[in-house]
Every structure is written in structure tokens, then in C-alpha cells.
């Protein structure tokens, strides 16, 4: 029986379909091909992630991606113990912010390790079946 006190509602749209942008699309295509890339600004020469069609530093148009050596450095990390509902996870997950030498920005991703360390060097473990998603990298693992 509904109480007179309130009107219940679920506020959500059923589905969002987000565009990746022209440069973001190329970046995802490279991931699908098993290559890690960064956007390159033609004016200041910076390489940056996440990739976008403009340089956030000087507003120049960006069209080009450069392949990046897929070895990153763990800048910081956390260990996830519980799921969204507060239930303990069967397997703890290490989530890290990974930077790549010479690249502004970086990636947040899982790192498969029992012994996470600041500054540890990691590389992507690619999935065999890739779809052009950041999860084409299943996780990073210690070099």
C-alpha cells in the first residue's frame, strides 16, 4: 500500500550513448589494435592523455596520436576491499593511477599484484578479444 506522504520515482534515463570524439575514436581504435597512444599537440609538442582534439595547455587543434611505450609507473594506488553495496570482495582489487614517461596525464586502471608499490613499473595485459574500450586492457601487471 502506498503511503500518502510521498511520490516515489526513479530518476534515470535508460541509456546514454557517449561519443568518443574524433581523436578519442582513433585512440580507442589503437587500443583495439593492442597499441597504447597519446595525443600530440603540434604547437607545444606535448603528449597527453586522455586524448582530445585540442591541447588543454594552449588550445591548439590536435589531430595526431603517437604510440607510447606501454610501460607505466604507478603514481599512486588504492586497494578495493568491498563492492558498491559494501559487501566484501572475494578478491581484493588494486586500482592505480599510472603515468607514462613523457606523457601528460595518464590512466586509471587495475593492477594485478599482491604487493602494490608506489613507483612500480607496470605494463598492460591485453585481452585477446578487443572491442575498442579502455577495458581492452584487462589489467596492468608488474614489469
Amino acid at each position, binding site marked *: 500500500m502506498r503511503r500518502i506522504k510521498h511520490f516515489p520515482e526513479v530518476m534515470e534515463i535508460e*541509456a*546514454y550513448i557517449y561519443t568518443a570524439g*574524433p581523436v578519442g575514436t582513433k585512440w580507442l581504435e589503437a587500443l583495439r589494435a593492442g597499441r597504447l597512444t597519446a595525443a600530440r599537440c603540434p604547437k607545444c609538442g606535448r603528449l597527453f592523455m586522455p586524448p582530445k582534439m585540442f591541447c588543454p595547455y594552449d588550445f591548439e587543434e590536435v589531430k595526431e596520436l603517437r604510440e607510447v611505450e606501454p610501460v607505466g609507473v604507478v603514481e599512486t594506488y588504492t586497494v578495493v576491499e568491498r563492492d558498491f553495496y559494501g559487501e566484501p570482495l572475494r578478491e581484493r582489487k588494486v586500482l592505480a593511477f599510472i603515468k607514462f614517461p613523457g606523457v601528460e596525464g595518464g590512466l586509471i586502471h587495475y593492477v594485478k599484484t599482491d604487493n602494490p608499490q608506489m613507483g612500480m613499473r607496470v605494463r598492460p595485459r591485453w585481452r585477446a578479444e578487443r572491442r575498442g574500450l579502455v577495458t581492452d586492457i584487462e589489467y596492468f601487471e608488474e614489469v
Partner: protein
Amino acid sequence: MTNRNLNFKHRVAVVGAGLTLFRSRMLETPQELAWLAAKQALDEAGLTLKDIDCVVIGSAPDAFDGVHMKGEYLAEGAGGIHKPTIRVFVGGATGVFVPIAAWWHVASGLCKRVLAVAEEKMSHAAKPHTQYVFRYIWDPVVEKPLNPNLIWIFAMEMHRYMHKCGVKKEDIALVSVKNKRNACGHPSAQLCMPNITVDDVLKSEVLVWPVQLLDISPTSDGAAAVVLASEEEARRITDTPVWIKGIGWTLDTTHWTNRDLAYPEYVRRAAEMAYRMAGIDNPRKQIDVAEPYDPFDYKELHHMEGLGLAKKCEAPILTREGVTQRDGDLPINPSGGLLGVGNPIAAAGLMKVAEIFWQVRGEAGERQVKKPVYTGLAQAWGDLMQAGTVIVMGI
């Protein structure tokens, strides 16, 4: 400087404008759309990001782009990183509120050069339909349980206006025909229809009587930007600054049941504020070209009356007589408006401001109105159809 009852330190000019394509779905991300427009506005002003002191961003509900904190998210594309940056939001009225907020940044003396950017990516809200976002704007007690749709309300307002003023659908359809034809001169336009007729509008699918498919603007992705500068800076930047002569904005009650549906009081009050500041006492004679908000064809008429560009119930007559055509005595929406150029909400309002900027500069290309333009006006309207924003610009 004291101007009538408003106090401000600096005169403010628009010195550049930029606009993306308006399309139903753009590949560019919201940040990238904002950058495209911002960059174009800077280029037109001959400035770079370094020259900008402050940034004002406008965007309608976060739920369209599907990114909460959309202002913060857009900041990078709008050039707002490491600068005093703010996002403003008054629903559909946002597009004209962005340059109003940017105006007070400069008029107060706080900033000298301000980038004002508006963006909307309605296509992200994909399923079941973009319109679903509007399910969550209603009063939860008195309206929500009825499952209202935004178009229902417009239909009721349109019908009330038709009834009170004795306006026929044919008269209202003329607005849609004019604007969708005008849009063919606009490089950003989504709905250029060079051969559309009143008959096409009247025969289009009935959505919610009396609203038919061709009475309505489309959903769109897009962005717009303008650069504002203080008098001293503006004169350094360009020989043809376009001065912001008056600004005004007001809110009416959110309960649309408690408003005069046949006459937009919220626009009248906003216009009076702007006119007082601009020294305008006879808008019909003193405004050379206007871009009133036209998400629906009847709203152009409604808003012309609220703006005092026509007497009550007179706008359909002026439209029928051709007065509001590009070569008429009072050109209305020479850009093609929301009905023709498209309706990425906040960006659509700022598009109107950009149009007046280009019209005053004589740079509107094939959209340039025939009569000389000294003073123009742009207006938007939104929230729960209760917010009015008005800007008067001129040489």
C-alpha cells in the same frame, strides 16, 4: 558610470563570436564542442587563451550530456583552467544568461576580457528519448504523478494564446516556414528547408494538438561562444566593437498554472530592465533586428509581444504582412532561429547573441538584413517556461 537606475564601472563590448555546426549527433565530445566554438570566437577577436581573464560557461541540465558537474567538466574546452570560471544555468534561458553573467564580470571591473561559452550535447541522453530528461522538472506533488510531458504544456500554452488572440494555425505556421527558410543562409543550420510551405507544417504529424512536428525545433548537439571586453580593451582589439547596451532577466513562478499563458510576463519584465538600461522607450522603432527565442513557432509571436516589438495579439498580423522577414521593417530571427538552425539548448540562445553581433557588424553574409542595423536584441526563455533573459546590443 551611472546609467539610469543601474550602476556599473565599465562599458562592455562583444569582440568575437564562434559557433559549431548544430546537428542531431556530433562525434565531438562536449568539451571538444566547447573548444571549437571558443577557439573560433578567440580567433575572430584575434586573441589567444592567454589573453582571457575569466570564463563563464552555460549549459542546461547535466542530464543531457550525462555528465554531472557539467560546468567543471566543460571548463577545459571552454578555456577555464586556472582561471576564475563559473557555470550559470537558467534552463533554456541560459544561452542569453551566459553573456549577461560575462557582462557583469567586465562591467564590475573584475575582469577585462571574458570568454563566454555555451554547450549542449542532447544526443547523449539516448534512450528512451532525449525528452525524458524533462520528466524530472515537474513539481513532484501536483504534477509528477500525472506523468507530464513538456510538449503537453506547450500545447496548452499555444492553444490558450490562439484562443485569446484569435490566431489560426496557418498564421503560426508562417513562423516555422520563415525560420526554416532563413536557416538556409546559416552555415551551422540543421534544418534548412528552402521549399517548406504552410501546408507542409499543417500536414505534419500531430504530436499534441495543436503542436505538430514542424511547429517544433529539433534536439541538437552544438556549442557557441563570445568574447567580451571592457571599453579600453575592446577599442584595442577591434575597430568594430558591438556594445552591450542593456541586459535584463527575471523569473516567474514555477507553477505554470499560476501564470498568464497568453502573455509572457517574464519576458516583459526582463525586457523592461534591459530597455531602461539601454535608454529604449519605443522598442518597435528602436530595435532594428531581433532574435526572440523560438523553440516552437508560436513562441516567436508570444515573445515578440512580451518584448514590446508587437502589441498584444499583433505579432501574427506583422508576420502575415511580411514585416518580420529578413527584408521587412522588423526582421525577426534572420538566423533561422531554433526552428531552423537547431536547438542545442544553451548554445542555441548564445547563437542568437552571436547572430545579433554579426548583424550589427554587417557580417551576417546572406543572412544580413536589408535595413541598416544600429541596435539588435536577443532573448531566451527557459526553466519551467518561467525564466526570461534579454540582451540589447548595438554600435
